[in-house]
């Protein structure tokens, strides 16, 4: 058996939905983590619950990237695929994310009754130059799976993958115990462990290759966390006391997490009757002086727009999380995109005044709620936290973060502001209305309305009052503009090409720029965490590059600018061009960015 030492490797487990591929992946990455490796895991989830098995829509699985160093994204291509049958494999091959030396382990259990289909897929693999290793689950394991009413297959595959990645059997079994120990009775648990062992032994004896990714002993406390969990904990840490939402993928898991634990931290979870009611309740709470947040995805954002404009006009603080998914309309609920930027930025009717905070990774997810709370309470304008399916659902191992236990927004710590590349805002920011008292303040009696108001809060349709109200609201945004520091830049601040992105594209930009530079290709990168307003100096930075290009998960072509390119062009008058503007639902890939950079500067 040959062992290939790898610094980094990416593999996939593909199964039918409902058979536990994610569970197996979860156990495996925890075991990886225990052995000191770094992981990044992206689940592939169908938008339906359990589509019929052995159909293309049933594809459900995990992509796992494991390395001996910290990784920031799901990477490029896959080295190894384990597929439970030929149909999910065939479906996944359509995405074209395998590398030239990719190996496929294909379960042939279904072949007898599907000869032709298997042959076709195997022919496709041969054409792609992918080596295929057929196998079948042994008879004993099959009997055990049958006795478990069909479940447990994932344990066999987990065993195989554990062996191929040279994992200690004991470490993985300990994770299985931890995962199922409390949920399953002993008999069922033992059957699962037996199936796992059979898979492990089988792969050790029959698969002639294996991968070794070195692990480093942990010196600091590490956590394994996904974006939505991190955001949920961040909401608690930011001192927010009301979460108001309506079920929608991929935002819902924030509500699920908080529903279990929020009350222990003094918080209420309100599941509203619709998206509009959810944002209305958040606004009501904040009018009462109690920090609140609402959370949604694509279609829900469209529904919330009237209230978002209202909050700006009435000067009631408001935080909206948008976990973006593929659109327009219902689109692809379990695929990633960054195409809500214009809806967030310009979605309400009339003039738009808001701040857009985006998250690049699970660490940002934790600190974004307090950043948003700081901004919205200082400015009384709506503040967005833009996440996306990819960031929301991907898990990563990070150093344990330090909660700040914020009570009052003036307590915000410098390192949080620094993370979002911002200085502290000035203390006395002018409001449209002088009185901003919360109920309970004697004599305060603040009355707010979406109608144009004068300084005293009276309804007023006079020309000068309207102009002033607009100026005051926009001046708040300009305060942020002025407080923004230089955004994060990778590589030198002048050169041939600058690659710009926002939100979840940070990791791939960083990796692509680092790898390009390591290969002697001069390129730089820029990433925005606060994507609106933009800092004052970006035109100067852009002017020191021959080309400025964007990479974004939003559709664009030669006649249509994707959102970030459009925004940067209009704000700077620099000829910013989209380099990648894709709407495939799949994350950006560092290697593709590198290729494009090469093409553009040659």
């Amino acid at each position, binding site marked *: 058996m040959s062992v290939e030492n790898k610094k980094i490797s990416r593999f996939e487990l593909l199964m039918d939905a409902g058979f536990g591929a994610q569970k197996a992946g979860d156990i495996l990455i925890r075991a990886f983590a225990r052995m000191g490796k770094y992981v990044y895991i992206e689940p592939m989830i169908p938008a339906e619950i359990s589509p019929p098995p052995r159909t293309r829509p049933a594809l459900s699985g995990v992509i796992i990237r494991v390395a001996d160093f910290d990784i920031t994204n799901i990477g490029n291509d896959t080295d190894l695929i384990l597929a439970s049958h030929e149909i999910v494999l065939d479906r996944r091959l359509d995405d074209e994310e395998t590398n030239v030396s990719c190996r496929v382990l294909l379960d042939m259990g279904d072949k007898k009754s599907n000869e032709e289909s298997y042959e076709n897929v195997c022919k496709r693999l041969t054409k792609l130059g992918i080596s295929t290793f057929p196998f079948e689950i042994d008879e004993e394991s099959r009997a055990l799976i049958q006795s478990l009413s069909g479940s447990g297959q994932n344990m066999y595959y987990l065993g195989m993958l554990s062996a191929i990645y040279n994992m200690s059997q004991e470490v993985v079994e300990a994770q299985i115990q931890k995962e199922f120990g409390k949920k399953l009775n002993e008999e069922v648990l033992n059957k699962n462990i037996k199936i796992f062992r059979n898979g492990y032994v089988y792969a050790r004896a029959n698969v002639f290759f294996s991968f070794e990714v070195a692990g480093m002993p942990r010196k600091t406390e590490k956590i394994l966390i996904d974006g939505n969990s991190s955001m949920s904990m961040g909401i608690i840490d930011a001192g927010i006391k*009301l979460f108001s939402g309506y079920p929608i993928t991929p935002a819902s898991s924030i509500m699920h997490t908080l529903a279990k634990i929020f009350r222990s*931290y003094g*918080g209420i979870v309100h599941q509203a*009757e619709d998206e509009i009611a959810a944002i209305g*309740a958040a606004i009501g709470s904040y*009018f009462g002086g*109690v920090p609140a947040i609402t959370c949604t995805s694509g279609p829900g954002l469209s529904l919330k727009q009237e209230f978002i404009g209202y909050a700006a006009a009435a000067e009631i603080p408001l935080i909206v999380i948008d976990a973006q998914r593929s659109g327009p309309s219902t689109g692809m609920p379990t695929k990633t995109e960054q195409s809500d930027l214009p809806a967030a930025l310009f979605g309400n009717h009339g003039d738009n005044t808001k701040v857009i905070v985006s998250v690049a990774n699970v660490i940002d997810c934790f600190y974004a709620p307090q950043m948003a709370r700081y901004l919205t309470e200082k400015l009384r304008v709506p503040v967005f936290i833009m996440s996306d399916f990819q960031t929301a659902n991907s898990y990563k191992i990070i150093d*344990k973060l330090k909660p700040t236990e914020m009570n009052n927004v003036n307590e915000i710590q410098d390192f949080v502001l620094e993370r979002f590349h911002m200085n502290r805002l000035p203390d006395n920011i002018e409001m449209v209305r002088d009185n901003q008292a919360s109920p309970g303040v004697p004599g305060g*009696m603040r009355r707010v309305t979406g109608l144009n108001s004068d300084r005293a809060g009276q*309804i007023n349709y006079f020309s000068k009052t309207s102009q002033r109200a607009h100026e005051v609201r926009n001046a708040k945004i300009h305060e942020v503009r002025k407080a923004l520091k230089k955004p994060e830049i990778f590589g030198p601040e002048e050169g041939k090409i600058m690659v710009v992105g926002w939100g979840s594209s940070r990791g791939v930009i960083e990796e692509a720029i680092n790898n390009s530079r390591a290969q002697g290709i001069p390129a730089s990168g820029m990433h925005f965490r606060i994507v609106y307003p933009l800092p004052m100096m970006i035109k100067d930075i852009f002017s020191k590059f021959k080309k400025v290009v964007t990479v974004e998960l939003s559709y664009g072509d030669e006649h249509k600018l994707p959102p970030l390119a459009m925004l940067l062009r209009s704000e700077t008058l620099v000829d910013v061009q989209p380099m990648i503007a894709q709407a495939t639902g799949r994350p950006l890939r560092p290697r593709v960015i590198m290729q494009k950079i090469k093409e553009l500067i040659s």
Partner: protein
Amino acid sequence: MSVPVEQKSTEPITLKALNTDNPRWCVGCGDFGILMGLKRFMVDHQIVPDVTVNVSGIGCSGRTPNYINTYGVHAIHGRPITVALGLALARPDLNIFVESGDGDALSIGGNHLIHGVNKNFNCVFLLFDNELYALTKSQTSPTTRKGHPTNTQPSGTYLDPLNPISLVLGMGASFVASTADWIPDHLASTLSAAFKHKGFSFVHISQRCPHYDPDAFDHKTSTWFSFLKHEKGIPPDKRIADKTELIDHDPSNLETAFKYANDSQRYFGLFYQNPNKPRYDEILHGELEKAEKKPRAKILDRFLI
């Protein structure tokens, strides 16, 4: 999670103290009567404006919070219930009044009315029912009577009106009362009963619109309506009690409540009250109260590997 506040006002609450700048309703508008009823109720019971919030939607009714010196949220069309609920969850110490119209509550905001009634959170809900859209200049609303011409159905409104009282009784409302803008004593007594009831107190108010539909209610005669009276109910308006029929109705009797709600005759008074309906706000606050308190410093420990 409530903000600590002073509950007592040092000044006595007077009608004058509740005034703001002049309301901009048309001369003769029933909304003046409702506003006066609300103020009178506040004075009668010395309701402290510092801890009182009026929340409204859009329309003539929606202007109310701007014309009474309490805290106020003049929100967006059809959604005042959603804002009021957020406020009730965040600040159980506040007195919350919601003003909404027949278009606001029964048309664009119909969904929220269902869930406000069902969640039964503590507030007084005032439905200003003038039986048409007025601020947008005379369009058919869900309660416009069949045949009445409007700008959108000029040959006469096509359908029979919705029956708001029957509707909320059917939804399981815990408090359903009806009154009118031109009987101020009854209006104030109704608000008083509604305020004392803990839960979503639905108050239907027949409201005159002299500008677009002066014939909707004949407020000078009183033969077309009756008062529902009971020891557990709302006392009939003293000034006209002797000119109209008084009906004994036990407000705990849902069956007869439906009977009067669906009658062609109009009834003012307390249709129904159920003090035992569970309250969403109370349940959530109870959960908060009994939850094991945990320090935020350790929130990430559950993710340790």
